[in-house]
């Protein structure tokens, strides 16, 4: 390799270094961390080493042995780091409700008195094998599939077999499916409005085109929260839309537009419309203007010319616009939270609950991982289909 080429490579590397750094720090690193937190479960194994050894031979059904209790108390006495103890308590309580108060009580007793402690006399919950099962499962391995299973409404029972969670205990699958259905609905609505809009905008010129484009761009420059709040005001029972409808005598009572699916779809379609219009528009203005007159001169009816010429050519814009809208819609949080009812919440609200409410990062990571995988599978299907189409063409 000669010197000028090497220095060129170094220069280009330096030029892309900020981008690489940005991608690593703000994209790859958080992504990998969250994915890791979905399956890694080292807290109990680290905090309860003696217990982990003591429960190894336990059958997880019979009453807890003396050795387990002694080891557990010894481990609790060993923990000096309050945050480690907190992580342990959170981990155990998320497997079995009741550990919060139980562990606080046990730790206080263990640090106040030396020697052996009768755990069952301290709290009768310690006689219940199900609490020890939770300890044993948590302490025996530092990798878990618990979160990933729970993200799709499954669990492992006491014998380790995978079973479905009770129908009223978890609804992640329902919400995940709903997320995809809503994103798809918004995408279709955006195509139906965005395609004609972009075609009209591309066919005009001068101030008329600027006006139409401005109508799309102006909302894009406004904060998402402001636009959502504006829709809240417009859609409510006493809002502009309903009072106009009632004054015109079109309806006798307010049409339910808010706190339901209709409202969310309307608001999300409006918010995401620019991402559909702009790609289609940029494809359309690249199409030579004389194609439609050429089709007409060959005797094609305008409708046929549209179907056979303009629509296929604009399809590339529709596809990239749809991808943009669909992918963005999957992660929507604010709009469904403010405009939607309880049945319109998307998976992001569940992820947000686990992250900000319960501080259960494992579950948040697992749900994110499932969403990411489902999205990547859909994307792979799309790539496959589009490459087949291109191969045919």
């Amino acid at each position, binding site marked *: 390799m000669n010197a000028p080429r090497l220095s060129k490579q*170094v220069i280009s*590397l*330096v030029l892309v*270094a*900020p981008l690489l*750094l940005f991608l690593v*720090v703000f994209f790859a690193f958080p992504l990998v961390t969250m994915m890791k937190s979905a399956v890694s479960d080292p807290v109990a194994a680290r905090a309860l080493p003696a217990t982990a050894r003591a429960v190894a031979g336990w059958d997880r059904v019979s009453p807890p042995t003396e050795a387990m209790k002694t080891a557990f108390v010894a481990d609790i006495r060993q923990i000096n*780091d*309050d*945050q480690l*103890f*907190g*992580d342990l*308590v*959170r981990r155990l*309580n*998320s497997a079995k*409700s*009741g*550990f*919060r*108060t*139980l*562990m*606080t009580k046990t730790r206080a007793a263990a640090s106040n008195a030396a020697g052996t402690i009768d755990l069952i006399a301290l709290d009768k919950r310690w006689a219940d094998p199900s609490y020890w099962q939770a300890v044993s499962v948590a302490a025996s391995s530092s990798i878990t599939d618990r979160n990933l299973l729970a993200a799709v409404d499954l669990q492992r029972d006491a014998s380790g077999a995978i079973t479905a969670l009770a*129908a*009223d*205990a*978890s*609804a992640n699958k*329902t*919400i995940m499916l*709903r997320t995809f259905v809503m994103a798809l609905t918004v995408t279709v609505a955006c195509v139906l409005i965005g395609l004609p809009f972009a075609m009209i905008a591309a066919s005009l010129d001068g101030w008329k085109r600027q006006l139409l484009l401005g109508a799309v761009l102006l909302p894009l420059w406004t904060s998402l929260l402001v636009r959502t709040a504006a829709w809240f005001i417009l859609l*409510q*029972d*006493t809002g502009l839309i309903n009072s106009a409808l009632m004054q015109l005598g079109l309806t006798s009572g307010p049409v339910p537009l*808010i*706190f339901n699916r209709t409202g969310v779809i309307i608001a999300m379609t409006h918010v995401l419309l620019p991402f559909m219009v702009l790609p289609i528009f940029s494809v359309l203005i690249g199409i030579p203007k004389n194609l439609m007159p050429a089709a007409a001169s060959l005797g094609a009816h305008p409708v046929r010319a549209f179907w056979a010429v303009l629509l296929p050519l604009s399809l590339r814009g529709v596809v990239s616009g749809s991808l943009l809208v669909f992918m963005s819609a999957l992660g929507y949080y604010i709009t469904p*939270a403010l405009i939607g*009812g*309880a*049945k319109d*919440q998307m998976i992001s609200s*569940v992820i947000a*609950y*686990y*992250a*900000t*409410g*319960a*501080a*259960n*990062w494992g579950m948040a990571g697992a749900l994110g991982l499932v969403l990411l995988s489902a999205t990547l599978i859909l994307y792979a299907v799309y790539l496959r289909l589009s490459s087949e189409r291109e191969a045919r063409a």
Partner: protein
Amino acid sequence: MKILNAALMACALATIGTMTAEARDLTVVSWGGNYQDAQRKIYFEPFAKQSGKPVLDESWDGGYGVLQAKVKAGIPNWDAVQVEAEELALGCADGIYEKIDWDKFGGKSAFLPAAVSDCGVGAIVWSTGISYDGDKLKQAPASWADFWDTTKIPGKRGLRKGAKYALEFALMADGVAADEVYAVLATPEGVDRAFKKLDELKPNIVWWEAGAQPLQLLSSGEVVMTTAYNGRISGLNRSEGKHFGFVFPGSVYAIDSWVILKDSPNKDAAMDFLAYASKADNQSKLPEYIAYGLTNTEAGKLVPAKFQAELPTSPENLKGAIALDVDFWTDNSEALTQRFNAWLAQ
């Protein structure tokens, strides 16, 4: 590669530099809305004037994970935060709060016993209960049974989104006596019973999350009744001349506390601020703006009689009200919330 490494290092150092170079002003976080407006007037601004340093204030809607993440990440960007009882208990056990220096506060005995903790100073006693617009509703609701009765009072109802409070209220609507609510809720049958009762009202519920939302829902007529925080109701009545009512029997009261996040760079200033906001003569100004009960026992006595009647701590208002069972919710919050979310989704 050397240049690349150097560039990477330089970028990393520059990022770290901008993050730590500036000393941040004391940042106080509370619940927003007209409550925080009042706090700004009587605590934040006078304290900034007294200490000669600016005080920044931000608002939040709760969530233990928010605080835990901030402390885990290293140096938190909030200093003093007002938290609910459950967040205080969880965070104190997890060690994410600084220990309170009670000498600065005139000793623990100056406060209500329930407002004293190793990691937090009680700030207010507040109630959640039924509220309604007295101008629009001819027949005022008196109990949770009325709240559930959509034939007697037709229209939508607002409820705080979450298992906490909703389950308690559902049981009371189903005829459970106020003082037995937590005993019933501690059994699996009791939880089933509460969810079954919530099923009845489900089509008529509008869920809210931030404390300012129920006021908007009531004002706009989107709901005829809603659960709300008592102080905000009386605050709005005073500032906007509304006639919103609040039903104290069957309400649930709890204590909110000030905490200081672990490793806060403004720990001392935050402690001084907490002491300032907990002083009897400063606390006693709060009920003029917003009707929350006070934790400093001396402050309670300094409140003018005309505001006393609105406070959740007045003997009249405590009749039929219950205290939030913090232990129950620290244990069961996650499992019940998961079930609640599943119930919502169906």
